[in-house]
């Protein structure tokens, strides 16, 4: 899929997005609310057949962000779904593992280190923190004190 086709196909999901940002030709950001990230990721993975690279969880000042990075290997373009989780008290997002098995570990990791509940994850257990790590302490949150 060349860049032009990719841009055209991406406009099909415009109604699910807040905005499309493009920092340069090969870097596209799709900004959306958390409840739409499942549908957007599914569209990128299944309809556009982009390769799932990884997700990044970030504790921003007023919300949590989860960035799902997809790669269009034909052009070297990275398409990133930037999902905003506004509820800081009970942050949660829908799991994408049911249709992308490759996301299983990273969603467990995001739960581990940021405390974001991943809804409908098929195998939600700790991935990287020790078994005796205290509940409710999330090391990658900005308010975490060592």
């Amino acid at each position: 899929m060349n860049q032009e086709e990719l841009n055209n196909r991406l406009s099909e999901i415009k109604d699910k997005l807040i905005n499309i940002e493009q920092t340069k030709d090969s870097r596209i950001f799709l900004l959306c609310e958390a409840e739409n990230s499942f549908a957007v990721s599914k569209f990128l993975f299944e309809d556009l057949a982009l390769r799932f690279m990884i997700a990044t969880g970030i504790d921003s000042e007023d919300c949590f962000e989860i960035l799902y990075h997809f790669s269009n290997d034909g052009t070297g373009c990275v398409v990133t779904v930037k999902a905003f989780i506004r509820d800081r008290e009970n942050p949660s997002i829908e799991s994408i593992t049911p249709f992308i098995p490759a996301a299983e570990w990273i969603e467990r990791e995001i739960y581990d280190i940021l405390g974001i509940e991943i809804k409908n994850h098929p195998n939600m257990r700790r991935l990287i923190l020790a078994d005796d790590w205290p509940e409710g302490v999330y090391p990658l949150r900005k308010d975490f004190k060592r």
Partner: protein
Amino acid sequence: MKESVNKPILAVGPFHPLQEEMEYFQLTVDGEIVTDIDVRISYNHRGIERLSETLQYDQIPFLVSRICGICSASHPLAYINAVEEIAGITPPDRALYVRTIINELERIHSHLLWVGLGGHFIGYDTVFMWAWKYREPVLDLLEAITGNRNNYGNVKVGGCREDIPNELIPKILKELDLVEKKTDMLTKAILDDPVLHVRLKGVGTLSKEDAISYAVTGPTARGSGIAIDVRHDDPYAAYADLDWKVITQTEGDVFAKAVVRLLEIFESIKMVRQALKKLPDGPIAVEVKEIPPGEGFGRAEAPRGETFHYIRSDGGNRPVRHKVRAPSYVNVPSFKASCIGQHIADVTLTLAAVDPCYSCTERLAVVDGRKNVVHDYDALLRLSREKTARIKKEIGVPEIKLEDF
């Protein structure tokens, strides 16, 4: 009723003779056949992403090069690519070529290392000895260029720290000829060996569909017929200027992955030769003032696959978020597809076939605190031979000369 039947469980790890790192694989078995696998990692979690947020941009390359000793050129390069993307920095051409050369030398030694380990895992230690012997001169070249056999610490934002001296180029070319000759011999010996065909073909097969759904990268993907390679798809450093091809195999078994790695060694040798020939003159770094706010991605094709770094900057001198994804993070979960249905005896080899990353930084040198190295390689070799001869004499082993064979 069926649920209550206890299924036998076999543990591979956390410390297993064939797994150098701490990884735990829990195999559910039915007779000799593996019916399920559960992977547990993070026995050695070091919190590098968090640590990185406390360091300045210039300090981070040294941290990320220590994520893995073998990938100690590709992690910093992926990080640098991300930072340079945010700041819009274009390093001088010579720096891009130096980065390419170091990364390809890294790939050569890493693939030779894997070939050796692969041989060792199936009890074919001749391959192990050969491959590791031919790997040594490559490490020596890296030491000559950067000062270190691993953890080169040679890239920085805006360029490189150390240049490749032009006087060194003839030596590199000479050693590459030798490595190519030996690897050629090794490759032919492996590809022609009927025993290896029987042992490795059809073992641990990862189908193309599974490779896509588990999103594997590197030789693991290319062995399953997916022609992805960051060097080709999203070129960085000087890869766009070089003439080479992406190696793929369609079978997806352990043999296919071995073939991909062996043939990639020749492509890498080709690339280093071209890069040395085209090496432009000029400076190796530009001055970098500050990193503006923004976010950027850096990708690099490590020996094991795509290394991905994400950086977010708020305009300060430290990143606010630094995400690292090493290739094994997506390659290891594919065991769920490649190990189930296999015999137990094939599983450790299948696990090894994606070349899970481990650290290999130790070396042998006896150092006097105040003087320089007192025993170099030759001296240690001589000492070792003298000791063996002495022990043989003591226990009365008859003297055997090499000519006797």
